[in-house]
């Protein structure tokens, strides 16, 4: 019974932190410099990893689909299938997972070490709201940077897929890009571009909550960092399924 109560209590604290963290953008003071620093860390800091992973995922996906579609005599549809997979599903989810692993774990461990080192208490003593100073800039940076990284990652993954389709699978480059142009419809772009905003919010809220609830020294810090990443992964996958279901319904796709 105590465990259930504890879990409900944590859930309540998480909702309150997520709400206040987001509402912080409407209240003074605005910590613009902290926000820029966080955006730099989350955005430019993650760019190289995102580029690398997206390129290879795009190439691997193109290889798999070219091989499979060749057997069915449908090789020319590689661009279309790869494009839809990347833009609607794989791009947003994969880049969110990379973001949670790199940026989310960083947020949790940084805030956790600030808690353990009494830096968060010091902020409160100085009359500074830790949620406003620490959580709001991180939420905003994640919500702003993850969609940007997703767009860049999608583009690079498509380029990787194009390279394999044209130079390995010997398909027409013009046809590949015209297939991609065909699938860049309002529905597909919307389905792929809403997700990163939600994923960014979830990752930053989970990571900040975990970091700020750190207890118990180095072992506690390890535990909360691991929890932040694992829970973020689960949240991404579950939220992706729910959003996909809802978006398909709203956009009028029939199953």
């Amino acid at each position, binding site marked *: 019974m105590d465990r259930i109560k504890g879990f409900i209590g944590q859930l309540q604290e998480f909702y309150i932190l997520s709400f206040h963290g987001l509402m912080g953008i409407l209240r003074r003071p605005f910590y613009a410099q902290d926000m820029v620093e966080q955006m730099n860390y989350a955005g430019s800091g993650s760019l190289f990893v995102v580029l690398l992973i997206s390129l290879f995922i795009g190439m691997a996906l193109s290889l798999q689909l070219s091989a499979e579609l060749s057997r069915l005599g449908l090789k020319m549809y590689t661009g279309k299938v790869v494009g839809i997979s990347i833009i609607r599903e794989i791009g947003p989810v994969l880049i969110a997972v990379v973001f949670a692993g790199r940026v989310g774990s960083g947020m949790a461990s940084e805030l956790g070490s*600030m808690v353990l*080192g009494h830096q968060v208490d010091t902020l*409160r*003593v*100085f*009359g500074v*709201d830790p949620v406003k100073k620490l959580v709001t800039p991180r939420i905003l940076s994640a919500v702003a940077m993850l969609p940007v990284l997703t767009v860049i990652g999608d583009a690079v993954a498509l380029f990787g897929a194009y390279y394999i389709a044209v130079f390995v699978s010997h398909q027409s480059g013009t046809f590949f890009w015209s297939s991609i142009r065909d699938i860049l419809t309002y529905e597909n772009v919307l389905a792929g571009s809403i997700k990163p905003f939600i994923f960014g919010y979830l990752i930053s809220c989970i990571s900040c909550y975990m970091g700020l609830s750190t207890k118990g020294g180095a072992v506690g810090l390890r535990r909360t960092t691991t929890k932040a990443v694992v829970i973020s992964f689960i949240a991404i996958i579950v939220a992706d399924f729910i959003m996909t279901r809802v978006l398909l319904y709203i956009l009028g796709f029939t199953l």
Partner: protein
Amino acid sequence: MIEFDRVSFSYGNRLVLNELSFSVHEDERTAILGGSGDGKTTILKLIVGLLRPDSGRILIHGEDIAEKAEEGLRDIRIKFSIVFQEGALFDSLSVKENVAFPLREYTGMTEEEIDQKVRELLRRVGLEEAIGHMPEELSGGMHRRVAIMRSMAAFEPKMFLYDEPTTGLDPVSADVICKLILDLSERGRGYIIVTHKVFDAFRLANRFMFLKGGRIVFDGDRQALLGSTIPEIRIFLRELNLNQNQ
């Protein structure tokens, strides 16, 4: 005046303070002694409202802070200057930015005035040279000197609260910190020092409390402490004998 009136506090199921009652005047030099995990730091955090008691009242100048909202605690907190264990400097800020932090939050000083004030404070503790350093480049003693100056940068506190100010320092650095603590209290400002280093406590305080099992089992002056027959206090006093023999 700080008054604890039957204050209890627990972390989860672990009761740390059990109906604790005591009072301390602002001009007193008090040392709270006790073992690790006995709730010494918890007392300091309760005084400035960083933690809320499970039950009981905490009166600061007769005002109960236990029920106050976070915004209302700001006026209470500026009366105290609290220095946490190991200094708690912000890792991401330089020494200058650390000391300037409360000045930016609390005052409307210009950048030039802030720079001047920070230099003046750091000069006082012989650290003006370290103004551009990051906290990771400082020794433990330097950390604490910067933290002490930061804690009193923006306002004149009525009382200092020190959490293990000399723990983990070599004797020379500990001596510098003790002299600084005594120097800052020259103007009649008292302090509460929480420590398990009885040698430093003897040097700094004239009133001693000993915490055990969530209660104060001893409250008295130096002579009374030396004559105490409480086994835990006798163990603590061994450190004093060792230092004297050396």
